[in-house]
């Protein structure tokens, strides 16, 4: 089973699948993650359930918590076919931060993350910002313009979130495909800068 990258395991097939790459869409409950995924995904967002006993093996030790046997969480995702051999997956994190245990599953191997913020409820995104900072994953904070309005100006939001000046802070409209595309491009830009820096170091 465990074999080289993109290696074929199991026998001959008709068609070679695309190389999957993924991007995480994070943020608090109800900030517009599913809307964001739905705006740009070529399939309508799918929901799957993950079970803590498998998703959190080694991360959360359920055996230490009597009665805490299993937690089921829902995760929304969509995809964009980049070309015939490359497919971009967008995974929305489960909104409630008590489901943070599942994030490793989503974030490890990801290109980067878009952290969506509702400017009226800034503290909802703290867990996401903390998590990606610690992981060292390139991320962008995107304020969702609900009804075209942002409750605070961007410098105030940056101050409140205490994110590094290098972390892009943008506004976008989760319902607008092109706006979502541009937000994703900012994430890609960050990831590219990081990849190029790593390349020159080698």
């Amino acid at each position, binding site marked *: *089973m*465990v074999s*080289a*990258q*993109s290696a*074929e*395991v*199991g*026998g*001959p*097939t*008709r*068609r*070679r*699948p*695309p*190389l*999957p*790459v*993924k991007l995480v869409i994070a943020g608090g409950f109800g900030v517009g993650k599913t809307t964001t995924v739905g705006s*740009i995904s070529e399939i309508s967002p*799918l929901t*799957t*359930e*993950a*079970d803590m*006993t*498998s*998703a959190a*093996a080694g991360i959360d030790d*359920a*055996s230490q918590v009597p009665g805490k*046997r*299993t937690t*089921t969480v829902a*995760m929304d*995702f969509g995809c*964009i*076919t*980049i*070309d015939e051999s*490359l497919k*971009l*997956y967008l*995974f929305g994190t489960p909104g409630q931060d008590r489901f943070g245990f599942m994030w490793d*599953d989503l974030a*490890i*191997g*990801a*290109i980067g993350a878009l952290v969506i913020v509702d400017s009226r409820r800034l503290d909802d995104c703290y867990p996401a910002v903390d998590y990606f900072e610690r992981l060292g994953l390139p991320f962008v904070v995107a304020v969702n313009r609900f009804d075209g309005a942002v409750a605070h100006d961007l410098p105030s939001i940056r101050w409140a979130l205490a994110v590094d000046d290098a972390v892009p802070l943008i506004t976008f409209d989760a319902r607008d495909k*092109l706006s979502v*595309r541009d937000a994703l*491009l900012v994430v*890609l*830009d960050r*990831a*590219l800068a*990081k*990849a*190029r820096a790593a390349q020159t170091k080698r």
Partner: protein
Amino acid sequence: MTSDKTPTERTAGALVRPFLSGPSDGAGGADGARGSRGADDRADAPVPDGALRPFLLTAGRVAGQDSIAIETQVVTTDSGRTAVDQLGFERRDIVSLCGNPLSVAEIAAQLSLHLGVVRVLVGDLSADGHLSVYLPNADASTDVDTLLRVIRGLRAIG
């Protein structure tokens, strides 16, 4: 079911059962748990972690293939297409579904199965030669050329 038990068993049962029954179990939790233990041939073993339904699908295992990431692409092989009628339930569903490449996450969503269950079943079916599993390129997300392709692809949307 509880009336013929000793007081100790009743206490233990009363304490343990409600916690073991997952939200999907409802009132049938107690009977379901007992049945699962019997089928396991290990009546003395503690009831394992996890909801019962996913367990039945994976013959009691939770240790899925950790290497199978959620975006891992899965395709049915010729052997899988031939064997599809001999496979049962979820295994047949997965093999039928993956005529075209699908990610593990898409399989889970389309068949309404837990991700963990899909990981275990995909691992089994791959070991049996019914599925090809293409492990994602771990370096793709930090590869400059791949990132440039994604950027070009996104810019083309409009």
